[in-house]
């Protein structure tokens, strides 16, 4: 069931919700004031490790593939290091830097305004589709384009159509080609299909994607293979493997953020007159964490702390573990669900929902607590139709030129 009003969904009074908001504001203020050398050292170390891995991976492939004796171990090690570097860059570094988590350092080289990440989507388009659309309108049907990414049916409220029978296949394609799916996300294919997209804006976006995508493809599939001489095929395969590994990993982590069973959907009525505290509450009820060790959290860009990330998208990611302790205490105090579980269970629930919702509602049962409300056909909103107001970190702007 989609919730029209989070406040009424929970048992909390208006005053209690506002009190919760104040307590969350206090957590934010405390972290903001205590940002220091150690935090700066964390992101700098992460960047050093990531670039070191990327360089080592490339060099291992270029040199190690040349001799027959070292070929197999070099291929495995090179592809592994490269894949790891891409994962770290996209998840813990790129995604978080672009949220502005490190802008406080006043360091122009680690800043949301000019970070460009190692994936096909131009940073500018990501900051619009993710920082603004997804983080401000999290899980609101018809507003948050991340509910199924315009490809999958992820909520029972989304009207069923026979085309969704192909959902298991679309899902597999999306997982394998994730970086290209993300690259096209901000274009809004639905608007293009219906002819409502501004053609000038579409051309500008396509030019940006083409330029960024071309450089990415040239690097991994032309330049490095060419430098490998006779071993070009092995290098090409290793690079493709690294990209595929990153795609699958990023896909899985991201699907664990809002699709496990505890994460709720909302209707647009909720957006009307939503206070800051209610926005906080919507983030908490709409997100799901997963459990794991420090390494797993770093590799997943700290998105195992999805709830904390959605409450404070622009606080440094290395602080999420300590914030999580406080947020859990608040959830207990106010008796609000805090959705978490092991990674395999969280992803398993998301995958099961994908499979189930390929069928009409009448043939499946709901896994959410309440029975489904009537189906509504919801289209994507344009920016003009969206309320422009508080966005808890969502930096985006359109450059004047392409």
């Amino acid at each position, binding site marked *: 069931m989609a919730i029209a009003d989070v406040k009424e969904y929970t048992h909390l009074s208006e005053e209690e919700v506002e009190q919760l908001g104040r307590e969350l504001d206090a957590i934010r203020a405390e972290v903001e004031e205590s*940002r*220091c*050398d*150690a*935090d*700066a*050292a964390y992101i700098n170390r992460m960047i*050093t490790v990531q*670039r*070191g891995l990327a*360089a080592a991976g*490339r060099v291992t492939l270029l040199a190690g593939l040349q001799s027959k004796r070292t070929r197999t171990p070099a291929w495995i090690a090179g592809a592994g290091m490269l894949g790891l570097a891409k994962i770290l860059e996209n998840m813990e570094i790129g995604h978080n830097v672009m949220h*502005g988590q490190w*802008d*406080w*350092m*006043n*360091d*122009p*080289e680690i*800043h*949301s*305004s000019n970070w*460009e*990440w*190692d994936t096909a989507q131009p940073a500018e388009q990501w*900051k619009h589709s993710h*920082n*603004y659309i997804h983080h*401000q309108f999290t899980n609101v049907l018809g507003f948050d384009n991340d509910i199924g990414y315009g490809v999958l049916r992820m909520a029972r409220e989304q009207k069923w159509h026979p085309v969704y029978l192909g959902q298991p296949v679309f899902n597999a394609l999306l997982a394998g080609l994730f970086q290209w799916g993300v690259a096209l996300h901000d274009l809004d294919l639905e608007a293009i299909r219906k002819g409502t997209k501004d053609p000038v804006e579409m051309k500008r976006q396509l030019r940006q994607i083409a330029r*960024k995508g071309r*450089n*990415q493809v*040239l*690097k991994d599939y032309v*330049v*490095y293979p060419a430098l490998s001489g006779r071993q070009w095929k092995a290098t090409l395969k290793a690079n493709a493997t690294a990209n595929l590994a990153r795609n699958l990993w990023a896909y899985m982590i991201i699907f664990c953020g809002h699709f496990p069973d505890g994460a709720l959907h909302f209707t647009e009525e909720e957006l009307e007159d939503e206070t800051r505290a209610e926005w906080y509450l919507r983030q908490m009820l709409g997100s799901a964490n997963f459990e794991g060790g420090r390494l797993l959290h770093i590799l997943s860009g700290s998105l195992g702390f999805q709830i904390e990330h959605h409450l404070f998208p*622009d606080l440094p990611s290395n602080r999420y573990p300590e914030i999580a302790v406080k947020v859990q205490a608040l959830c207990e105090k106010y008796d609000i669900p805090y959705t978490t579980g092991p990674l395999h269970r969280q992803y398993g629930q998301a995958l099961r929902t994908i499979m189930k919702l390929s069928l009409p509602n009448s043939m499946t049962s709901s896994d959410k607590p309440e029975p489904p409300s009537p189906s509504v056909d919801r289209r994507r909103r344009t920016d003009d139709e969206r309320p*422009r*107001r*508080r*966005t*808890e*970190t*969502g*930096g*985006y*702007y359109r*450059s*004047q030129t392409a």
Partner: protein
Amino acid sequence: MASSTIAWDRIRDAGSKLTTPLHPDDYLRLLNPLWSQRELRGRVEQVIPETDDAATLVIRPGWGWRYDHRPGQYVGIGVQVNGKFQWRSYSVSSPPRRRGRTISITVRAMPEGKLSAHLVSGLEPGTIVRLALPAGDFVLPDPPPAKMLFLVGGSGITPVMAMVRTMDRRGSMPDVVLHYSSPTPERMIFRDELDRLENAYDELTVHRLHTDTDGMLELADLDTICPDWRERETWACGPGPMLDAISEHFEAAGLEDSLHVERFSLKLGEDGGEGGTITFRTSGRTAEADGATTVLEAGEAAGVGMPFGCRMGICHTCTLTLVDGRIRDLRNGDEFDQPNEQVQTCVTVPVGDCTFDI
């Protein structure tokens, strides 16, 4: 030399096909922090104590630095303190050398200045700092005028020292009178070097005034200290009140055209400093803003393509570089006036005139 530099730049540009979306410099700086042109930077090679509260930092700039500053100019220096880059400007005290390897800046620890104290006593050799290109028009003309007068107070000696050293290095000292005020002899930066230069050149006269015992410079005394001051081109650098008095004195004599002044501290507007003219440097536009109009609103009204996001100080999309001037954060009244400060334009208003890099 020049052609090999261009070839090297070409190689690095070609290398960006391998490192896209990053630049090869982003990897090279892992080998040596100075091997990057992404941002100007330098390594502190030496910290030389000058007095109890002042020190000269010898900095080796990295790639992209040209040693062609004009004597008297200042550079911006950015130091990471508690994770955050803090920027200040200091005069370069070393003379320009085309084949130089280092630049020197001389810093005095100010009583309220956390950063200057950190620079004087807390900076280890080896620290990487950021640099901004030399700027300022308080410079030695080339060739220098035949008769010069320098009126300096305290650490105002630093840009003047760059000029005197330049003339010394060229071995051609014109007729120079230097009046140097300092609270005590011990606090006089470059005291020994000035003694040596004064002995070496008949053309150089140095007047020392110790203001703790002998009081401030009375400009009426200028007629006895330097009777021909009206014929000299004059450079003045020091505390604000001293410069105000000198400016008034020269204006009264109708000589303001022969006076060059360098101020260390920002002068606030007469009305307490709310609102002002905002200059958007790259787009070449200006806007008038009162104390309630944010920089973002003013820029949009002037037709500047301002980046924006939430418009309430959360998302940091609107962040721009404050090149010059002072702004106030409407949320808490904090004021920011560091050159190169990154500020959120949607929640800040100008306090006096300011310039943004957009």
